[in-house]
């Protein structure tokens, strides 16, 4: 314990300023970049990663070319970022010219598996360090001088991710293809460097045999990234969350990360999870096959007591009646001072960028607290938050907090089982 890793998934060029900000830079471990973003925005992404000089990984997003790929399509064809990625992966003949998704039969031949693994992982490795002849000699010279390791640390991803596909259960043909891709990736790129993604349904967690099989098949890999489709921590039932903690315990002591994740995932560091990679104040979970669209875009604010984001109007409404409870983080503290602690003025001055910085600071503080305290202390603290919400929010404001009760129940069960 002690070094739970917060990665932020960068989606828009505008977010880079937040992550580069000196007051934020030390609050997270590194960044995650979707391969489509990296392929389409190669220049700004590689420049950003070089400037940032922090650990990063590239999510290969190979699942996007699988079935039900409506979220990568536009009216007139494939979105540019994904068609660029298809070219990088050498699958343009199938998905662009052939206008179809990848199917399991595309991986029947081992040579096709090897080709796909090479193209997807070389893309990750060379994103910001396309090693040309002259660069290679510079690296070799740097190595002689003893700087080689430092240079490669900055230039290459913290780890490489084997190409992956969504599987419904272990009987799904895509499950075996994932295992073959992972095996091939380990052979070609070395065991220590390769992470695998388990991208499936959360129902798998409820079937002990199913998850035992997965644990066994993924035993030969050092790092795993978990992505349970639509795994919104705020509305999961207790049994699912308990199974999730059991699954983590069975997988550990590997380096286990969550592809997305929120506060409950940070709590799950006590059960073996080592990191999360949500967006900044958004995307704490995601459906594998489709993207939610529509609705009114709105500023959102993280409510520390409820561990959730709410739209600005609802946050304003709550803090109007509870000005003393305005967040005291560095960002909010400064705004509150300028706004003379008037909640309406506070929210007028709170730009979307500042709201995201507030989210980063809260997440970092929560992470620090959880890593430093025992499970019992964390449970007591969560209980305080729940009681606060019961007394001050229940039935009055449009702020969800009932998930705290479920999380508490999960933690209390774990503590009880430890005593037994």
């Amino acid at each position: 314990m002690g070094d739970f890793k917060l990665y932020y998934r960068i989606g828009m060029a505008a977010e880079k300023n937040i992550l580069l900000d000196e007051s934020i830079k030390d609050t997270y471990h590194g960044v995650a970049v979707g391969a489509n973003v990296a392929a389409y925005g190669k220049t700004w992404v590689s420049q950003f990663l070089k400037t940032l000089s922090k650990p990063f990984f590239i999510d290969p997003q190979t699942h996007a070319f699988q079935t039900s790929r409506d979220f990568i399509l536009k009216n007139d064809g494939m979105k540019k970022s994904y068609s660029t990625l298809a070219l990088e992966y050498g699958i343009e003949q199938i998905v662009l010219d052939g206008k179809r998704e990848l199917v399991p039969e595309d991986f029947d031949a081992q040579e096709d598996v090897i080709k796909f693994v090479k193209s997807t992982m070389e893309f990750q490795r060379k994103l910001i360090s396309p090693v040309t002849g002259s660069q290679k000699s510079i690296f070799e010279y740097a190595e002689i001088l003893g700087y080689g390791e430092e240079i490669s640390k900055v230039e290459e991803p913290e780890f490489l991710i084997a190409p992956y596909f969504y599987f419904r259960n272990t009987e799904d043909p895509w499950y075996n293809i994932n295992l073959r891709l992972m095996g091939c990736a380990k052979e070609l790129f070395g065991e220590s460097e390769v992470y695998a993604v388990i991208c499936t349904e959360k129902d798998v967690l409820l079937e002990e045999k199913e998850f035992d099989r997965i644990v066994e098949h993924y035993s030969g890999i050092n790092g795993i990234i978990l992505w349970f489709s639509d795994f919104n921590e705020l509305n999961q039932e207790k049994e699912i969350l308990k199974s999730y903690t059991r699954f983590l315990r069975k997988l550990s002591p590997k380096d286990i990360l969550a592809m997305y994740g929120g506060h409950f995932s940070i709590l799950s560091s006590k059960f073996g999870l080592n990191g999360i990679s949500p967006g900044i104040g958004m995307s704490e979970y995601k459906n594998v096959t489709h993207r939610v669209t529509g609705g009114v875009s709105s500023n959102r604010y993280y409510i520390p007591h409820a561990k959730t984001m709410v739209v600005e109007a609802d946050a304003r409404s709550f803090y109007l009646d509870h000005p003393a409870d305005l967040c005291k983080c560095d960002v909010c503290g400064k705004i509150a001072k300028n706004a003379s602690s008037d909640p309406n003025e506070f929210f007028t001055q709170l730009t979307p960028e500042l709201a995201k910085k507030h989210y980063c600071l809260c997440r970092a503080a929560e992470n620090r607290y959880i890593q430093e305290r025992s499970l019992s202390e964390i449970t007591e603290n969560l209980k305080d938050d729940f009681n606060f919400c019961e007394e001050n929010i229940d039935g009055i404001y449009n702020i969800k907090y009932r998930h705290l009760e479920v999380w508490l129940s999960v933690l209390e069960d774990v503590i009880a089982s430890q005593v037994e």
Partner: protein
Amino acid sequence: MIQSEKDLVDLLDESFRMRGFSTAREVRMLSKFIDLVAYNPVDDGLVAIEAKLSGWRRAFQQAMTYRICADDVYIAIPAGISHRVDMKLLKRYGIGLIIASDDHVYTRFEAERTKNSHARLKDEIIAECGMVG
């Protein structure tokens, strides 16, 4: 006869207009949409109303948010469910209650003028709805 939320808002709309208010429906306020906004140019008062055929609690929670932009905030519900409403709660937060019955509406109790409405948000709504402020 009120059969839909639209029927309810129709009644409310007519009632406020007859009293000299300018009205607008589905008015955007930040990410929310207010069912009915009524503006009285005489005292520069902006009224926001959340109408619901059922689930008064949900209406109340929505109405609580409208306090950030309006001077007076009401929930409007059919007479048939009014006995379920926690009147004390509404009064505690200054939210007024309008009851609708068949073809007319009446104010069960007045809203308390909010102290915290934000001038900029209120002005934006008045301007957006083309109401003369």
